[in-house]
């Protein structure tokens, strides 16, 4: 019996859903507008997509959603969080919540304390865990906060103190009291990791709503399936985990889109450019996963450091406005956006857009009336397309990690703009079903595990250190539900660290594999 999977992606504009079989073929798909309460959209997409499918064959359902991201951006339904840092006497010069936007600080950050604890780079304790101060802090938080975020210096290397702090908080506030521990959320960089952990804790309520909505929708259709949410890195968490780690889903939209596009094209290494009405987003997949950003990521104006896909966005889309200036042409950065369907010249509007240029230049057909473009000179078309080609060339160069050529997958409503020939690009591909690439990306997501820590290569040698990191990542992937027989290492990043004795090196390893059935 062939087993089926459901993938649902709730985007800012559309909610997509697909049913996929074991061979990765799309059996059914649907696309509808995202609803005010996204749960309604999920339920609707689900009922549409499974209408003609044998429900008994469905075993798993994956959801990718922008709920948590939107909650932060719109400061909606965020909970008040107590902030506990285990690092004193270090770190006292920068209090928790420093440099947060005022409005977000006011609505999220409750009481905070920096108590004795934390680790040195070499594993010694900065100070023993100050348990009494943690109990006092817990009492101060009682009735004032909905959750507590705990961060400890060097927790990515050793999180024993964070676990102990979690136990103490449970003793004081009850085993069900929501607590977020930083080692589960972010990487090296205490302040950024603390920020991410606070945001994570503030999203517990939102996440619970999403997961309940998802479960109810599944239950409503009599589907008894395993349910998962997709993370920023394109891998899965169980719905139960997602309630505790919602921050790890805020970048999953672009990731699902890129992974879905790549898999639909049957590729594992490619550039992906998603061209919409206003902007073009470019990312790169290596071994089927998006390359992650090395830079600090801002979420809602707060600097964080959790795993996010490396994306470059530029102001180039089907609705980008084209203007004549002297003998030259200026494209954008402003756009008519989704109004391109009424504002563009070809659609009877009065604004010259890149969709008009693309039509006259022979890249776009079947969208509006080309005869309305008689007033647009060939010279303007030539110059505007030259600008487009240069931008796309720059975008693909900036994303690539080396000079070798690779394929480029073009998706999105504005993908017609992408030229067929780009230096360093083997071919430009637009796969079937690319309109539901997001939901497809969710449906094919795998389980993963990762490790990020500092090694001293002088202690046991580089290979032994890397082996240990690979082993830890693999074990983490299996714990996350991956099939032990099919787990593979998907990324190894080594960053040598200056001034660190014994050849100090930061090692990040990630492993992933298909879900064990």
């Amino acid at each position, binding site marked *: 019996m062939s087993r089926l999977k459901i993938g649902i992606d709730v985007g800012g504009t559309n909610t997509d859903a697909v049913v996929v079989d074991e061979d990765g073929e799309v059996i059914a798909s649907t696309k509808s507008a995202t609803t005010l309460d996204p749960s309604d959209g999920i339920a609707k997409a689900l009922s549409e997509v499974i209408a003609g499918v044998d429900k008994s064959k469905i075993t798993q359902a994956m959801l990718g959603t922008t709920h948590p991201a939107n909650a932060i951006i719109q400061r909606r339904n965020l909970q008040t969080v107590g902030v506990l840092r285990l*690092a*004193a*006497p*270090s*770190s*006292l*010069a*920068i*209090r928790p919540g*420093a*440099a947060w936007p005022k409005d977000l600080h006011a609505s999220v950050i409750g009481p905070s304390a920096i108590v004795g604890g*934390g680790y*040195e*780079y070499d594993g010694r304790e*900065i*100070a023993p865990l100050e348990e009494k101060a943690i109990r006092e802090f817990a009492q101060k938080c009682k009735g004032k906060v909905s959750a507590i975020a705990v961060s400890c*210096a*060097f927790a990515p290397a050793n999180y024993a103190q964070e676990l102990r702090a979690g136990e103490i908080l449970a003793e004081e506030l009850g085993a069900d009291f929501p607590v977020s521990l930083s080692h589960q959320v972010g990487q*090296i*960089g*205490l*302040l950024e990791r603390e920020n991410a952990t606070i945001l994570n804790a503030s999203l517990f309520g939102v996440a619970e709503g999403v997961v309940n909505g998802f479960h109810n929708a599944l239950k409503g259709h009599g589907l008894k399936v395993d349910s998962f949410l997709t993370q920023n890195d394109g891998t899965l968490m169980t719905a139960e985990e997602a309630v505790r780690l919602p921050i790890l889903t805020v970048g999953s939209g672009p990731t699902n889109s890129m992974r879905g596009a790549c898999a639909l094209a049957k590729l594992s290494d490619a550039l992906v450019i998603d061209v919409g009405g206003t902007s073009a987003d470019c990312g790169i997949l290596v071994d089927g996963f998006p390359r992650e950003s*090395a*830079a600090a990521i801002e979420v809602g104006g707060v*600097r964080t450091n959790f795993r996010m896909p490396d994306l470059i966005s530029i102001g180039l889309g089907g609705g980008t406005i084209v203007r004549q200036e002297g003998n030259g042409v200026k494209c954008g950065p402003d756009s008519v956006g989704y109004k391109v369907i009424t504002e563009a010249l070809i659609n009877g509007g009065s604004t010259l857009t890149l969709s008009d240029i693309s039509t006259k230049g022979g890249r776009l057909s079947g969208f509006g009336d080309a005869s309305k473009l008689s007033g647009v000179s060939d010279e303007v078309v030539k110059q505007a397309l030259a600008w487009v080609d240069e931008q796309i060339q*720059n975008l693909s*160069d*900036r*994303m*690539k*990690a*080396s*000079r070798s050529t690779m394929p480029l997958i073009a998706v999105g409503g504005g993908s017609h703009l992408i030229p067929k020939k780009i230096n360093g690009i083997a071919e430009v591909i637009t796969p079937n079903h690319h309109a539901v690439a997001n939901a497809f990306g969710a449906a094919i997501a795998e389980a993963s595990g990762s490790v990020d820590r*500092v090694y001293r290569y002088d202690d046991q040698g580089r290979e032994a250190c890397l082996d240990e990191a690979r082993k830890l990542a693999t074990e983490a992937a299996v714990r996350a539900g991956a099939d032990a027989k099919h787990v593979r290492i998907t990324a190894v990043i080594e*960053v*040598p*660290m*200056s*001034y*660190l*004795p014994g*050849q*100090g*090196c*930061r090692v990040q390893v990630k492993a992933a594999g298909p879900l064990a059935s």
Partner: protein
Amino acid sequence: MRELTLDDLDDMVLGATLLGTGGGGDPYIARLMVRQAMEDFGTVKIVTPSELDPDGLVLTVAVIGAPTVISEKVPAGPEFTGVVNALASYLGKKPVAIMPIEVGGMNTLIPLAVAAELGLPVIDADSMRRAFPQIEMTVFTLAGIPASPMSVADEKGNVMVFETTDNQMAEKLARSAVMQLGLANGISCYSMTVRQVAEAGIQGSMSYCVELGKRLMAVQRGEAGSFDEFLKFAEAKIYFSGKIIDLDRRTTDGFAKGTVVIEHMTDPNRTMHVEIQNELLIATEDGKPIITTPDLICILDYENAQPITTETLAYGQRVNVIGLPCAPEWHQPGMLELVGPKAFGYDMPYVRMGEAK
């Protein structure tokens, strides 16, 4: 005298990033620290030596350790006030001002936080006006001023005051001490009188950093004529515009070393090589030196003029390679042996900016 405000702080951070020449540590954490210190203790005055008693004591303060460790073991405060107080008590004299050693990278800002807490002014001078990786690489070494006696401290109250026979030994002892102290520590060295600062220091470094940052900020806002104004102020020049086509990183002797290769924007036959040792040190074209240490090499993002640090350099970035002449105070006997290309192991001559053929 000028009062440093929170607005100046943004300009100073950008200036400090530029003067970090790709290294010097991310000023982001130091900036948060200064912000909190100003909130808690008030603003900081920047003064010139002429405003102070010539015989008054000036103490420096800086962070020493490893940037990655500092990102995890965030500054506390006592490691910096501790080194200043310890050295003052060793010398039996109270300081009249705090001085940065290194105006470039995060050490530009640390002295401001300390000065705010101690209620002292910051003297508008330093010993590098750029980032360098070692303690002895200062104009004070050239002037024969010892780094010793010096102090290092951690946030827990462990403090060492020690003396060394020369400034190279000062670097070695300080490095081995901080390894035990957690690699995120305060250091104070090169104690001297206001008169010595006036004679041997690089004058006006802090104001220069703010003014430089202010002009680069205008470039980033896209103001008309701002790039020319920025270059004119810094006496800087764009030497190369192109795309990064190769990046080789390695770690040797605790230093992040590497080479970045940039292909010219319009002439693919031209490439520039930039050599990295924590900072950007040498830029060559066809093996010929174009910009050489101690002159400053800065790689700016071609689009938004943001200085790119060595950690964030990446294949495909479009960049401008800019040279800034080092502070004029560097040009004195002994400079090349201390901070010229050969001091970093590059077998090539120093080419003073503007003299490349």
